[in-house]
């Protein structure tokens, strides 16, 4: 192991390390801790400029109920779920199949098709913005949840195909060979033999895509205008414009917006990191 395990070093170093850890963590997460504390401050504290000291009163319930009753934040959160969950499902559906096709079958343009997916996944969003927006306006998908879901599913298919293809490629090919010899049809092989083995990949991508789409801000501003389809990211930005310097409300809103992906990460940590670090070892 590198660096040298701390247990093998002097007692003094070990104690020092045990103190350094929480201090480093507090400094690292200071922005988040400050937001949490401020989300329960009273307006009086904010007006008095007490942003950093201990709050004089705790307005946990007042602040959080204020954002839910006085603003459409609940609607934004609901929209975010309505956008994120179908996107995850559709992307996984598309990329299980594309990944399978590119990993299992040999055909002339295989590598080219694969590279198109990989390259497309890296392009800047702006090169797509004008045509995608125009297409959405013309098909009536502009300013709708469906419009965002369709775009996100298509775009994320690039990354997911890369991931799935490499994952399936690492599976033992003999499995498929012997199934073919037994006379099992190609679609049955996909569904009954390969799909069950893809569960870890599906779980990893599901959490990753959930986080990516939940946190998307650019497409939410490019393809949505009104409250009816606006997700929490763009919603928070528009609320920020209305709540000038009401930091207790902005903080409470930020916490609410950050909560779902944070929970997702904690519940599915292993899969999340497996997805993110694909290719970091080999």
């Amino acid at each position, binding site marked *: 192991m590198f660096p040298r395990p701390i247990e093998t070093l002097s007692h003094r170093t070990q104690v020092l*390390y045990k103190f350094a850890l929480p201090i480093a963590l507090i400094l690292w997460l200071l922005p988040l801790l400050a937001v949490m504390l401020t989300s329960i401050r009273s307006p009086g504290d904010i007006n008095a400029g007490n942003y950093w000291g201990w709050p004089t009163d705790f307005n946990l319930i007042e602040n959080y109920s204020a954002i839910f009753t006085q603003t459409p934040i609940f609607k934004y959160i609901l929209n975010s779920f309505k956008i994120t969950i179908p996107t995850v499902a559709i992307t996984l559906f598309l990329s299980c199949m594309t990944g399978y096709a590119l990993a299992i079958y040999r055909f002339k343009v295989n590598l080219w098709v694969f590279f198109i997916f990989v*390259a497309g996944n890296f392009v800047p969003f702006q*090169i797509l913005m004008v045509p995608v927006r125009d297409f959405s306006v013309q098909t009536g998908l502009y300013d709708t949840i469906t419009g965002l879901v369709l775009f996100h599913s298509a775009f994320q*298919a690039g990354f997911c195909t890369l991931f799935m293809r490499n994952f399936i490629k690492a599976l033992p090919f003999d499995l498929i060979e012997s199934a073919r010899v037994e006379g099992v049809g190609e679609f049955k092989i996909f569904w009954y033999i390969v799909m069950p083995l893809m569960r870890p990949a599906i779980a990893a991508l599901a959490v990753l895509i959930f986080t990516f789409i939940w946190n998307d*801000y650019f497409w939410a501003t490019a393809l949505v205008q009104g409250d009816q389809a606006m997700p929490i990211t763009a919603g928070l930005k528009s609320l920020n414009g209305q709540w000038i310097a009401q930091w207790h409300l902005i903080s409470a809103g930020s916490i609410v917006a950050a909560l779902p992906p944070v929970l997702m990460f904690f519940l599915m940590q292993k899969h999340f990191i497996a997805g993110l670090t694909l290719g970091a070892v080999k």
Partner: protein
Amino acid sequence: MNLATPQSQTGFAAWWKQHRFKIIPWLFLAPGLFMFTLYVIWPIFQSIWISFYDWDGLGDPRFIGLANYRELWQDDGFYTSLKNNVIWLVLYMLAVPAGLFIALFLNQTVFGIRLYKSLFFFPFVISQVVVGLVFAWFYDPSNGILALIFHAFGGTPPAILSDENYVTYGIIAAGLWPQIAYCMILYLTGLNNVAPEQIEAARLDGAKGLRMLWHVILPQLRPATFIAIVVTVIGALRSFDLISIMTQGGPYGSSRVLAYYMYETALSEYGYRMGYGATIAVILFLIMMVYISFFLWRMYQQEK
């Protein structure tokens, strides 16, 4: 009992048996490839095409040849954005060594270290909108924490986000926070997979500390470093959210980058100049293409 031989099959069945391995992959690919072409591949070409037009997004586009590119050549806003993109690219790279540093710090097995690792990773999970709001509040010159620190030392706090000289650096600092977390997790996974025998062998040879890191560990972390650089470059060139949240490109457009400038030109109160916006996007795309080509080339070498 049916003793059908392949010869006795006729029509579709025989044809299918002969050609199925040519057709089935395309059946699997069809839905994904269709969606991806419709929403990603085709729009790239459309954008290039639109960049030769003058278009407000509603009326008829008017062909103006290279006029958009000529205008861009003399546009100060474009050069400011380009310069900021370069600053972003260079400074964002700090996330790679910083991520490595934190990963080395956390690569221990003491009690509770797993929780520490996941908490350190937190900034990457939350939305950049939230990161932007929090840092904007940090920089607030009247009551932000930065102001408090300056007051404590008797100084006057700079108004980071409304000062042309500091604004881009202020935003980059906010962007580095989640990016460092990302690089850290890549390196933690990489460190987990470093061959222990090699470390022991090097220790027996008397290698330690920085020399060990440089000659033994880093070569083994190369895949992690490669991915960290790729995602950091892409992240730097995609920077949009933080600028939109923290400054909207201001003051006086001094914190714009190409991604934001494109959006502002094509789709904001400054007007709906889709053609000109597409032109900026094409330039950004070409810059990104350098990295994409490099990435694909490397992948191609590995696939061979």
